[in-house]
């Protein structure tokens, strides 16, 4: 649950923020109590967001692979883990494929449901006249205090987890010997160095390609009219929405034989990352392009610029933030992903996340923790750099690009 509530948060926040507080104030002034306002106005307006978050969480939990494997082992069997064990343990590619196909049906259903039902029911309209509103206090001070405490507790637990992680990486053996040591880091930078190098190389290659793929597809589906445009959009998003296990097994099967025999190479992992995580860039590009009024391009045209000049000097700079958001997400996911790529690693190319899993199953918690701390550190640095670059490219007064990194 803790792993996934950021998704819910990122989904809900813009929706709640977009609800016109005057609407709530209006209900309040009509004599409704705070609770009634919340129940009859705020909640119904937030329903699409809630439903969306619910579906996303459902899909994510459905697909989650590593968490149940590490936490529950064989006691609590979930489909993705079973599929993994079928393939890696029993070398039963068909059995694994069959299991993941069972998974495909609910996942696809959720994806389509989310796409066709929820996306149409956004009641919130963006009028561009949001300035100068006082947020409406829809909860009483007491309730707010309780909620604040609850949220604080959750936040503390999360901080505690990361602190514990750091601690575990710096002691000999968590729970047994709490003597300080840098041994685990020594291990990961010697034995684990290949995994680190491989991961960085793969992420480094996947990042620019994934970013480019994102703006290219985003631009095509928004600005160009061609046959199969909607299908293209759907298919590109599907790769992102489906459980990683399915995607991983699909890649494994598809590229196992000639003409495209990629299994065991870095290329298959890179390809998987690009097409699986590039869609964030697609969404960001589409969102930005939809914010760009047609008149901007017309203005450029009217001033004598051809369509190539207009694209280069007007459109491209305006969707650059989406490119960087795409870069960031592809990189971060390349560092942290496991569910799809665990099927794609080989002796030749391995990943930090896979190493962590191996360490856990071997019960060597220290190196696993050290690896994790390293990943967290790298991800933080990359987020900071990308954030800096995004600000650099955002002229004052340009459209906001915050939360593009989310998802």
């Amino acid at each position, binding site marked *: 649950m803790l792993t996934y509530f950021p998704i819910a948060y990122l989904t809900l926040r813009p929706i709640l923020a977009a609800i016109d507080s005057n609407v709530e104030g209006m209900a309040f002034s009509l004599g409704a109590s705070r609770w009634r306002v919340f129940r009859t106005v705020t909640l119904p307006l937030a329903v699409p967001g809630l439903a969306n978050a619910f579906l996303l969480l459902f899909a994510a939990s459905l697909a989650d692979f590593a968490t149940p494997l590490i936490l529950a082992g064989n006691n609590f069997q979930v489909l993705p883990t079973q599929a993994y064990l079928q393939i890696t343990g029993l070398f039963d590619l068909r059995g694994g494929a069959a299991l993941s196909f069972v998974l495909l049906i609910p996942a696809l259903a959720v994806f389509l449901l989310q796409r066709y039902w929820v996306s149409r029911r956004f009641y919130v309209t963006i009028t561009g006249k949001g300035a100068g509103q006082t947020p409406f206090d829809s909860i009483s001070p007491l309730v707010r205090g309780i909620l604040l405490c609850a949220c604080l507790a959750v936040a503390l637990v999360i901080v505690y987890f990361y602190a514990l992680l750091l601690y575990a990486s710096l002691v000999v053996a968590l729970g047994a010997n709490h003597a300080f040591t840098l041994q685990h880091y020594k291990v990961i930078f010697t034995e684990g160095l290949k995994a680190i190098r491989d991961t960085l190389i793969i992420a480094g290659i996947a990042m620019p390609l994934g970013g480019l793929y994102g703006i290219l597809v985003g631009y095509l589906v928004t600005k160009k009219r061609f046959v199969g445009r909607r299908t293209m959009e759907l298919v590109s998003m599907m790769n992102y929405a489906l459980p990683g296990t399915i995607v991983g097994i699909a890649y494994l099967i598809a590229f196992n034989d000639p003409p495209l025999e990629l299994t065991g190479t870095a290329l298959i992992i890179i390809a998987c990352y690009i097409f699986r995580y590039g869609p964030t860039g697609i969404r960001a590009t589409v969102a930005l392009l939809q914010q760009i009024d047609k*008149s901007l391009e*017309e*203005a450029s*045209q009217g*001033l*004598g*610029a051809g369509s190539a000049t207009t694209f280069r000097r007007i459109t491209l700079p305006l969707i650059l933030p989406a490119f960087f958001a795409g870069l960031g997400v592809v990189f971060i996911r390349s560092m942290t992903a496991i569910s799809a790529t665990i099927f794609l690693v080989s002796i030749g190319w391995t990943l930090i996340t896979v190493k962590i899993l191996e360490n856990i199953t071997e019960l060597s918690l220290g190196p696993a923790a050290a690896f994790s701390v390293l990943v967290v550190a790298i991800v933080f640095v990359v987020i900071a750099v990308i954030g800096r670059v995004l600000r650099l490219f955002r002229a004052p007064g340009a459209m906001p690009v915050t939360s593009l990194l989310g998802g």
Partner: protein
Amino acid sequence: MTIERIRVTVDGVSKRYAHRVKGEIYAARNVMLDVRPGEFLTLLGPSGCGKTTTLRMIAGFEAPDAGQIRFGGQDVTGLPANQRNIGFVFQNYALFPHLSVFENVAYGLRVRGQPTAAIAARVAEVLTLVGLAGYEQQFSGQLSGGEQQRVALARAIVIAPRVLLFDEPLSNLDARLRVEMRQEIRNLQRRLAITTVYVTHDQEEAMAVSDRIAVMNEGTVVQEGTAEDLYHRPASEFVARFVGRVNLVRGSVAAVVGTGADIAALGGTVRVRTLPAGLAVGDAVQLIVRPEAIGIGGIGGGATDALQATVSARTFLGEKIEYVVRCAGMALQVVRYNTGPGAILPEGAAISLQFVEDAVTVLPGSAT
């Protein structure tokens, strides 16, 4: 700044759209316009009348299905917008958000590959012209609506366009700024003498800025003329209603008097100065009378026989008073300047009305 003064001709231009409910509809149908060199012409009409579509076809953002558009002698119908050398001011200004004020204005010059020094000088000159010197490094998000409007204007005129086009440029400004900006636009256009086509749905704005106004409705130009022509001599009920406030009175021709006539209406007779050709005694007509052209009591010279009426409502607006009076069962709007507390009529007062003869327009009417 050398501006080439050219004539803009819109010759029988039509544009059709596929509408989801109504099927195929005409956004513009056989539109004819002749904008003289250096003239300020306004397309005026309600939303959906085709004025913006017409403007966008002049700009080259949309291609007409039929007809021809000429700049001077040149047929530009098939020419894309970027080769027409136009200045277009958008309703939402369409400033490039990632470029500074300077770069926004410089854009058209850069695209034309002008030398950097010349661009700097030219941009400075134009920004001074619109009163924005010193704003070069600002971004559009930091500017007020009026300032953004000026940047948009500067960006449009800096390239010395052959034609200046405005698409409801003032509709996003508040009322006072709107009045101020329309005056500035008018002064600037006079000074530069660029042939200008301006689109608005605000009749007052149209009258304030234009040399000539073309009123559009349902895709066609229904009347063209100066503001005074349109106001005093509307050719149809639509124009009368759209340009200014109006009373519509049914009647019939009682007698022809020279070029004018006596019209039987409102239980009496109304004398008019001109009767349209083709109307004879007994024909049904419609009288168009502006609220300020109705005299109360003995006020108003050259009036015909008095009509009896009562004041049924009044609105005090300070400088003027708006009355609703009942005359032969009909409610009429009458406006009087406030000449002092003693001149204000109470509700229920019995009065007589006189219509100012040459301010009454006669249109052929149906018999009912």
